[in-house]
């Protein structure tokens, strides 16, 4: 028994040792300008959009009180298991989002009114960093003179300046992004976002003072480490970071489709203005 345990430990140690140098020795294939080739279609495989912080599975994104605890709100009841929320390990580095006290209260309220407040429900542009971990792929188009992100969700786009044009002249949904390489890491700083976008479906939010610094580092032919540090002195007590893996889509999967969801929310937004409105369940909010 002792010998078996020792052998097992030895094998584990050896395989860990074998892994460590392999990862650090891996050098990303060079792309345009001699930089790592990040061209391609990428997507996360995590639950970050359901909540950046660690969360257990729950019955629905919109809940109401039931006789023995929360049950799905009537507006989403018919979705059954399709509308339930899977558990998420969380992507925040450290102990959750360091909200100021008022801001944590607001986040909790946001979450309780998710259905009427989350911009994703209305197909609004996602903002940064949420665009990255929405459950849709995005394509990076890169060469030595240009860097452009095209997102499947809502047809959002981001032109990333490789020369800093100075402060953003106006706030916008996707903000103004400036990119540069630090070694093999692509570093993108985004400012000039207004306060309308959210960070996930759990009511996490920011103000117009948000500054996001993203760091994309290729870690294998098919993966990149993605980190984003959010700094917003109006809402948080200190800068904080999310970390996750981006996966490269390959073969037939590596085709960006269009999710022009504006069309799909017309009944929601304009249905009551039809000449002959259809039956609808009015929101309880």
């Amino acid at each position, binding site marked *: 028994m002792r010998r078996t345990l020792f052998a097992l430990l030895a094998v584990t140690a050896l395989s860990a040792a074998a892994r460590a140098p392999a990862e650090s020795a891996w050098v990303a294939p060079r792309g345009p300008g001699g930089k790592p080739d990040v061209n391609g279609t990428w997507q996360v495989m995590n639950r970050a959009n359901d909540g950046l912080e660690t969360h257990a599975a729950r019955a629905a994104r919109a809940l109401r009180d039931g006789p023995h605890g929360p049950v799905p709100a009537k507006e989403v009841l018919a979705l059954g298991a399709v509308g339930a929320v899977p558990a998420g390990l969380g992507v925040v580095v450290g102990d959750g989002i360091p909200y100021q006290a008022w801001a944590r209260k607001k986040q909790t309220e946001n979450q309780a009114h998710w259905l009427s407040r989350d911009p994703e429900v209305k197909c609004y542009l996602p903002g940064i960093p949420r665009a990255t971990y929405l459950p849709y792929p995005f394509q990076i188009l890169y060469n030595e003179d*240009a860097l452009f992100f095209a997102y499947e969700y809502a047809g959002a786009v981001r032109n990333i300046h490789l020369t800093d044009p100075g402060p953003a002249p106006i706030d916008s*949904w996707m903000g103004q992004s400036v990119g540069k390489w630090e070694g093999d890491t692509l570093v993108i700083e985004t400012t000039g976002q207004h306060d309308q976008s959210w960070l996930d479906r759990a009511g996490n939010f920011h103000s117009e003072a948000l500054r996001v610094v993203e760091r994309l580092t290729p870690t294998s032919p098919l993966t990149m480490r993605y980190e984003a540090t959010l700094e917003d002195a109006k809402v948080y007590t200190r800068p904080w970071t999310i970390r996750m893996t981006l996966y490269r889509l390959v073969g037939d999967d590596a085709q*960006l489709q269009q999710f022009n969801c*504006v069309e799909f929310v017309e009944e929601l937004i304009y249905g009551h*203005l039809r000449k002959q409105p259809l039956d609808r369940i009015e929101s309880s909010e």
Partner: protein
Amino acid sequence: MIRAAALLLVLLLARVTSAEEWSPPRLAFGDPDLQGTWTNATITPLERPDEIEALVVPPEEGHRIEKLVADLYAAVDDVPAGKLEAGEDVGGYNTFWMDPGKRLAVVRGEIRTSIITDPPDGELPYSLRGRAQLVKRFWRLRKADDPETRLLGERCLVGFGSSGGPPMLPVLYNNNYQIVQSPGFVTILVEMNHNARIIRLGAQHRQGPIRPWLGDSVGRFEGQTLVVETTHFHPAQSFRVSLTHAVYMSTDAKVVERFTRLSAKEILYEFSVEDLENYRQIWKGEMPLLAAEGRIFEYACHEGNYSLTNILAGERAKD
């Protein structure tokens, strides 16, 4: 006189020489470099106005037309003083919001009066069926019973008219395009409505039930020229109307576009539309894409779309 002729000759020679000497740049991965921010804003309409016969006009006539159009736009801002009576037309944008360009399009040194070059009369060669489809769709527009019957531009699904195309045609504003290239792709960001046309180089058209907005585009380089072929259009995009053109195209129409960089500041944009369901012949057009000043900003249309709400609510009030 002789001196004037000599000067002209020198100028002409200089022009020919510079055109020959200018070699379009290539990107590190070998593709001709079309990158940058471009505009197709021009007062040259898609179809030639009835009162103008020739495709090409001399400079004096060009200036006269440009002044005429400038005066027409200036008149938009000439709002009479006093109150409007209830029920009167409140008008639309003033010219602050418009950016249709001020100049006629110049192609190969010629001042053009229509984007269409073929048929030679400069008019869309609608077949009876095509014309009927167009009229039918205009007829539906007279009411605002449901959001689905309104223009795509009003609904913020894509830009007005054929702004995103293809063919990409100028409209009243936001006539800007950004081209970004990467190995295997040319992407054209259409400012209105932040639509990225991702053109797959050397690829085959997709088939099946997914019919993309702005169609399915594949491309190739023929020498310095990017040739893009697009078909398999989204059915809602058949009816493309703006204040500057009214195009009806079937979902299986085939559009071929040719982008040739002529200088640091100009791309020649040529296109043909093959749709024998709706047109008597293949029709063709050409216009310049000129280097745009400044950069493209976010065109967040849907997020602030109070217009569609007001169009529908106004109609309900009328009911």
